[in-house]
């Protein structure tokens, strides 16, 4: 890595940025960009990088080719993938064995390797460029887009895409109040979920009495299935830090903290590296660029509590106390970290700031809906063809995200529900697919925007099971301070568990609703106040499914273990023994080419046979014992 000398004046920084922007234009002819975030590494991107390096060396192309290792590009389904510039050829699902061909054919000779291109599962056509892929076409990647162009470990790379120009603008051209007015006018709202106007929060913190103020970046992303903050921190840490530096200028803070989960080792590494580099070049610390501005940035690692994403609990955690929320007011903007005015924003919010300063408030406000401006990153996961991070303008419909970008549900199954907002959100049914997504519409539908998790479920998902899953998560992650949240989530879980086991009684649903509303009303912090959403939304849209469990002792989706038994349909079974091999308890009997049989006393209902069967010869049927029990003892 090239060492950068200490930057002492504003002009020096300007010159350095200009130099780097120029050097990007003069880059070697071919740039191979490898997506290597945590998801890419998990799918083997490190081995691909290794192979690429070797192959480039072997072909003697070191001078002509630049290898850029970047953070996540968002298309997790296609990892590990590479893009070869300047043509932008997109190769996906690579193995080290493919690398030789790529270097030989595409890089050296300019030919396209057909079999490595993205293939549309519906039409079967191949897409050459990233922009030809339907997954990317409807997205508006203003925050995530730069992940493709920067090496997150290199400050120079960030300079070369015009990084820190917004900070320079804020430092030299704008007064703190101007910055706040710009952010206010842009209509940016907190991306952590609640959607509080960012500018208003900044203004409140700025005008709180006191000399010492703090800015905090909330990177404690704990929702199951959500990872957009991780991806931004991993892929473009300088952008987040630049946003924080601008925020600190506006608010008058001299200290900042980035609170990031320790479960994100790559994010921690990249952020730590970024902070170190910025200190070395003098963009952090005392007397930045000789202007007298001081800003120190620290990293605080979370110890794995979901509740620490709540701002007061996060503050307690940084202070070294138990991560428990406290009563607001006083809000952190008045009394936050160490009792001083503190501005806490989400990773994605901070990452939006440099863009707003650079392109202006009007540009930002032109994206999105009336009350929700800009874009939002969602992590599209679950039963969906194109798993990945999608950044879309506010106001896009769920249908566009799930069908146009996400490519629909795999295996031709029917869409059932989409869970937004993680454990604090709710499940939205197919009838709401045309709902435009913004903060208000989602809240109105009984869910929340949340940090942006979007879990798609197909017809083989049981909503009772889903509600139970989220309640189990919440009863474990509640800090346990408020009786309403601690006991409320525990008791709701108990009731839903009974229902899923076929022990539900008439009156359970009414009790569940009453308890859910009380939990929502009586709890102190956001966790408890939204803990009832998974239950309430499931009851609102899928009540019949709960009723089927209670009154008919039947799980319509065939998921709840106590209510089903797996059977082999003799007519469909080819006797291939795939299920027999998959069964962990040797509960399947049968000889080759003969229909198999499941022994019920050995079967633990793990469902491995169902997944292993290629002929749909295994079915989840109603558990006979329960039907008999119900008939004998009504």
């Amino acid at each position, binding site marked *: 890595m090239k060492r950068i000398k200490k930057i002492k004046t504003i002009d020096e920084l300007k010159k350095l940025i200009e130099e780097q922007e120029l050097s990007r234009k003069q880059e070697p002819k071919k740039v191979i960009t490898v997506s290597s975030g945590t998801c890419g590494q998990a799918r083997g991107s490190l081995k691909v990088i290794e192979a690429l390096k070797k192959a480039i060396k072997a072909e003697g192309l070191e001078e002509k080719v630049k290898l850029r290792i970047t953070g996540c590009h968002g298309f997790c389904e296609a990892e590990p993938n590479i893009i070869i510039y300047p043509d932008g050829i997109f190769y996906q699902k690579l193995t080290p064995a493919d690398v030789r061909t790529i270097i030989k054919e595409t890089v050296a000779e300019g030919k396209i390797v057909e079999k490595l291109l993205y293939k549309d599962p519906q039409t079967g056509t191949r897409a050459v460029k990233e922009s030809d892929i339907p997954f990317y076409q409807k997205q508006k990647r203003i925050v995530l887009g730069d992940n493709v162009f920067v090496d997150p470990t290199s400050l120079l790379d960030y300079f070369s895409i015009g990084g820190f120009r917004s900070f320079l603008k804020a430092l030299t051209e704008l007064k703190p109040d101007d910055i706040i007015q710009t952010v206010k006018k842009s209509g940016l709202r907190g991306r952590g979920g609640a959607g509080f106007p960012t500018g208003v929060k900044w203004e409140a913190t700025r005008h709180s009495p006191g000399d010492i103020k703090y800015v905090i970046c909330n990177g404690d992303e704990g929702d199951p299935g959500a990872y957009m903050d991780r991806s931004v921190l991993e892929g473009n840490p300088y952008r987040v830090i630049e946003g924080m530096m601008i925020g600190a200028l506006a608010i008058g803070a001299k200290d900042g903290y980035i609170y990031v989960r320790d479960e994100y080792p790559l994010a921690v590494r990249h952020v730590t590296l970024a902070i170190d580099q910025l200190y070395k070049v003098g963009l952090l610390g005392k007397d930045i660029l000789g202007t007298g501005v001081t800003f120190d940035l620290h990293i605080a690692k979370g110890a794995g509590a979901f509740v620490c994403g709540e701002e007061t609990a996060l503050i307690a955690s940084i202070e070294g106390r138990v991560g428990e929320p406290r009563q607001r*007011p006083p809000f952190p903007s008045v009394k936050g970290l160490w009792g001083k005015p503190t501005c806490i924003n989400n990773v994605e919010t901070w990452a939006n700031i440099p863009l707003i300063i650079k392109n202006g408030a009007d540009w930002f406000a032109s994206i999105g809906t009336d009350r929700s401006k800009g874009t939002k990153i969602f992590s599209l996961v679950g039963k969906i063809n194109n798993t990945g991070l999608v950044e879309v303008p506010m106001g896009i419909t769920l249908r566009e995200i799930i069908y146009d970008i996400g490519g629909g549900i795999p295996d031709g199954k029917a869409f059932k529900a989409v869970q937004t907002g993680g454990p604090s959100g709710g499940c939205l049914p197919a009838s709401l697919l045309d709902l435009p997504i913004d903060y208000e519409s989602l809240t109105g539908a009984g869910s929340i925007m949340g940090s942006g998790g979007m879990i798609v479920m197909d017809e083989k998902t049981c909503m009772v099971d889903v509600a139970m899953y989220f309640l189990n998560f919440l009863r474990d992650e509640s800090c346990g301070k408020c009786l309403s949240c601690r006991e409320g989530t525990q008791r709701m879980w108990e009731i839903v568990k009974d229902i899923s086991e076929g022990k539900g009684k008439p009156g359970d649903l009414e009790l569940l609703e009453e308890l859910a*509303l009380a939990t929502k009303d009586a709890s102190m912090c956001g966790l408890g106040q939204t803990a009832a959403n998974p239950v309430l939304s499931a009851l609102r849209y899928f009540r019949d499914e709960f009723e089927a469990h209670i009154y008919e002792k039947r799980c319509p989706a065939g998921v709840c273990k106590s209510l089903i038994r797996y059977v082999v349909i003799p007519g469909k079974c080819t006797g291939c023994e795939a299920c027999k091999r998959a069964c962990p308890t040797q509960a399947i009997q049968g000889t080759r080419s003969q229909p198999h049989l499941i022994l019920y006393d050995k079967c633990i209902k793990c469902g491995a046979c169902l997944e292993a069967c290629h002929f749909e010869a295994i079915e989840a049927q109603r558990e006979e014992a329960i039907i008999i029990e119900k008939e004998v003892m009504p």
Partner: protein
Amino acid sequence: MITMKMNGLEVRAEEGWTILDTAKFYGLEIPTLCHHEGLTPYGACRLCLVEIGEGPKAKLVSSCTYPAEEGLVVHTDTKRVIQARRMMIELMLSVAPFSKTIQDLASKYGVTSMRFKIRNEECILCGLCVRMCAEQMDGKAIGFQNRGYQRKISTPFDIRSEECRLCGGCIYICPACQLRCQGPQAETAVCNACLTMDPTCLDYYDELQCWMYDAGRCGTCVREKK
């Protein structure tokens, strides 16, 4: 001086008071359990809930932790408050059915059934003992462990703490460990033996029209309404 509206009355609170302090000063009853004058407010038991604000933005907050704010509109006994409060008592009963304090609360606020599975844990994790030990006895011998449904009160590493001087402060302040009286229904989840109040008032009145001066405090009207 902070001016607020409480149950329709204009009240004045001093700087630094909570809603509960103000209500107490004016003689408005709000039930509390985890609150103690000598200890810092904690807001764990959620019994002292009051409704603040009006219209769709109205919400419930714990009055022991919420500071008095200029112009705040507070209702201490709306239907929403009573319902939430009753649910809290029912939840407490389900973990500590042998506590006299909680049985009394159930009787007073008209909780007549208990629909959850009983878990005789006796502790409702109000945290009074933890705060007593730390703040008044300067001991810090006990604290909370774990979170969520696994939360419990214990000494560090579950061994006898050297900080503990066996002063008994924690036992003195515990609201849950006094056993319920052995009345006629000693075995049931809800005793309600002292719930002898006959319905005295069958109509539901708002605020000042209630002859008890704050609708729903006795719980009768809300009970009948159901």
